[in-house]
């Protein structure tokens, strides 16, 4: 190596913290004798201003090329000393810290043995730094545009926060309007404010924001690249309506002769084939459902085209693919309610019209819903007298559903009970529960009030629901009484589990993000990095990461927006240079390193080369490390038998030198 080994060793007293427990001078003397060491000195506090100056002076004076500092833990001051080296002509990575405080002077009682250990630690550091090489942090340029996948309340909040900070945002939503699950709800617990009243203004904000490009009826199709430099393909599905001209007058919707079940109303009403998702939809313009439109299917009809005063209907519309350069991605794909019908035969498997799920109840009780807010049972439109609410349908049931708790059901079940008691005077509500979980501000109080309102909480899981004549009998155990109970109900509401939204697995796979066994997106660390993923530049917002209620969803959305803003505020990003590097000439392309990487940073790439011996032009596979993705764990290096892939800053030779130094 061309670089000189002229190493300077500096021993810190740390007051008496080090000097009081071991013989600093003996360490200095021993250091001086080590191979490569050109200078050794000690000082009371090396981290102090004069301490640092002492080192800088010594570098100049003695022409030092590498530095070893024996002091406190590198976790404490490694960064301090690296910064200090920036003022010298030595690369800041030609520095090793020997931890003689936390791991020697503080933990040992025998003065001589502690001294001996400190000498060993210095010897290891000197040996290692002798093999260190100058490293330069790489700068990755950052595209200042964020992509938010999913236009529910999480996506909306994240998009608004990022846009408000002055960055461009593309919000992609697969439905024809943003709003997600929240706009379907009637009221939100525990404050009982109207869900649409608080979410629709935000939707309008999104559409009006100069920094937000809204892409509804669109799906992310392909993601490539890495933090700061993603290339994303979005497919804009055909809407058959020219939204540039359409004013959303609604004539076509009125006149369309064909009606299908409304997904938005969860099958409780019908909507035309040309439709807006709901009256306050954003964008407030209709689209044609190509599976329902007779014109598109058979060519006969065309009523909407005839009626449209502005000629916006275009039956020839086709899907388009848009390519975007993106710097950061927020995943906000949300959830879907569990399909209880295929899980619970004992609840009728969907045979009973009057057994509905919580989201259907939201539509029933919603003033803009199919019954204009009157609670009527679907079978005959009668007002129910007795309503049974069943919790944990699909949740906390490893056999038929999911092992996890869906977290929001206890509270919205209480809300449903409250709404029933409010709207149906004389009505009775029984809530079957296993445990009641109300950890949240004002939550327990809300539950308390619902109970006082007269909702009867029965501790037990409903065992089965059957029809007897006109009523539905809910049979379960009141486990507090230890007696079986059979309740004749007019309406049964099943509070179903949340499941990852349809297609969320595809999105996560595309991004290279991990999922847990239940399909929820895996955060980088459950406590300390809750909105980040293992993939740099990809963040999580809302239920896609796990069941949660609206306050938590919005909080997490803002948190991920903060992370995105922090990233996009930079023009370029410095990555740690201590990452894996491949010596292409040694790499045999066996690919053993590839599956080890948790960040999918390693790919095998075809590299042009010449065949040894013949000189024939060939292409061979060589491992390639994506510096934007690699986090520097070094697990790959062990898989490489030849040592072609190595970890900069912790090279095989460096660690071997440390080992060897101990027994020289």
């Amino acid at each position, binding site marked *: 190596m061309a670089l000189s080994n002229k190493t300077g060793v500096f021993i810190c007293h740390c007051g008496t913290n080090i000097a009081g427990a071991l013989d600093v001078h003996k360490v200095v003397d021993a250091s001086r004798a080590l191979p490569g060491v050109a200078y050794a000195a000690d000082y009371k506090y090396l981290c102090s201003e004069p301490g640092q100056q002492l080192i800088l002076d010594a570098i100049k004076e003695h022409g030092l090329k590498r530095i070893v500092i024996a002091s406190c833990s590198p976790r404490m001051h490694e960064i301090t000393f690296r910064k200090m080296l920036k003022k010298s002509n030595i690369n800041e990575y030609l520095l090793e810290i020997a931890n003689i405080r*936390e791991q020697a002077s503080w*933990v*040992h009682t025998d003065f001589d043995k502690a001294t001996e250990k400190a000498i060993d630690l210095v010897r290891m550091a000197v040996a290692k730094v002798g093999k260190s090489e100058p490293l330069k942090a790489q700068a990755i340029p950052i595209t200042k545009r964020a992509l938010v996948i999913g236009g529910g309340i999480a996506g909306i909040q994240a998009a608004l926060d990022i846009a408000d900070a002055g960055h461009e945002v593309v919000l992609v939503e697969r439905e024809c309007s943003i709003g997600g699950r929240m706009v379907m709800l009637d009221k939100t617990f525990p404050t009982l404010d109207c869900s649409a009243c608080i979410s629709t203004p935000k939707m309008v904000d999104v559409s009006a924001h100069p920094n937000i490009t809204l892409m509804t009826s669109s799906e992310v199709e392909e993601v490539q690249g890495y933090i700061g430099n993603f290339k994303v393909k979005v497919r804009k599905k055909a809407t058959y309506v020219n939204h540039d001209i359409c004013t959303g007058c609604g004539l076509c919707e009125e006149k369309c002769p064909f009606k299908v079940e409304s997904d938005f109303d969860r099958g409780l009403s019908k909507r035309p084939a040309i439709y807006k998702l709901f009256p306050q939809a954003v964008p407030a313009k209709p689209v044609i459902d190509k599976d329902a439109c007779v014109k598109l299917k058979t060519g006969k009809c065309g009523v909407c085209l005839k009626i449209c005063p502005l000629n916006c209907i275009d039956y020839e519309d086709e899907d388009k693919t848009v390519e975007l350069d993106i710097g950061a991605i927020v995943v906000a794909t949300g959830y879907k309610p569990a399909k209880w019908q295929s899980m619970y035969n004992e609840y009728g498997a969907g045979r009973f019209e009057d057994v509905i799920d919580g989201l259907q109840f939201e539509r029933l009780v919603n003033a803009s819903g199919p019954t204009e807010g009157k609670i009527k049972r679907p079978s005959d439109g009668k007002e129910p007298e007795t309503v049974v609410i069943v919790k944990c349908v699909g949740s906390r049931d490893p056999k038929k559903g999911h092992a996890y708790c869906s977290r929001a059901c206890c509270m919205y079940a209480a809300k449903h009970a409250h709404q029933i008691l409010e709207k149906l005077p004389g009505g009775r509500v029984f809530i079957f529960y296993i445990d009641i979980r109300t950890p949240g501000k004002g939550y327990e109080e809300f539950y308390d009030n619902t109970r006082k309102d007269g909702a009867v909480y029965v501790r037990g899981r409903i065992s089965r629901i059957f029809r007897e004549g006109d009523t539905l009998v809910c049979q379960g155990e009141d486990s507090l009484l230890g007696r079986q109970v059979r309740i004749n109900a007019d309406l049964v509401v099943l509070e179903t589990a949340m499941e990852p939204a349809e297609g969320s697995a595809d999105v996560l796979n595309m991004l290279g993000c991990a999922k847990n066994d239940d399909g929820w997106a895996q955060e980088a660390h459950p406590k300390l990095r809750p909105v980040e993923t293992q993939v740099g530049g990809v963040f999580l917002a809302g239920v896609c990461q796990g069941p949660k209620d609206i306050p938590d969803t919005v909080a997490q959305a803002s948190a991920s927006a903060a992370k995105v803003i922090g990233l996009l505020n930079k023009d370029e990003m410095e990555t740690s240079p201590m990452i894996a590097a491949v010596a292409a000439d040694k790499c045999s392309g066996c690919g053993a390193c590839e599956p080890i990487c948790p960040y999918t940073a390693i790919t095998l790439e075809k590299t042009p080369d010449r065949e040894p011996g013949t000189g024939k032009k060939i292409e061979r596979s060589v491992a390639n490390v994506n510096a934007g993705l690699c986090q520097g764990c070094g697990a790959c290096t*062990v*898989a490489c038998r030849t040592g072609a892939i190595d970890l900069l800053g912790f090279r095989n030779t460096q660690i071997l030198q440390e080992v060897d130094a101990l027994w020289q």
Partner: protein
Amino acid sequence: MAVDYEPKIIAFCCNWCTYTGADLAGLNRMKYPENVRVVRVPCSGRVNPQFILRAFRRGADGVMVCGCHPGDCHYSTGNYFTRRRFMLMRELLEFNGIDPRRFHARWISGSEAAKFRDTVTEVTQLIRSLGK
């Protein structure tokens, strides 16, 4: 066996858990034998079994590999590979006639300063009792 025999033990510790735990032991002024020399690595997954061979070849009396508990890896999966590699290596060392009591792999988290102290103490005593 000489009474004053002091074994030299090398410990490969991951930066995020065990090394932090060792630092915490220092902050708490816990006391343990001087025999262990720690090599800092980013992740226990970085520890090549060949490092262990090298250490024994050079004359190490004992070798330790320590990292985050399974599931807690800073790099999410590194220690799962550590686990497989060293479950194999341990057997192979024993097969080659190296006393398995001289090689230890342990999960020690950043908060388990006491576990670090106890492990080091215990391993040192064990190896001291084995002699050279």
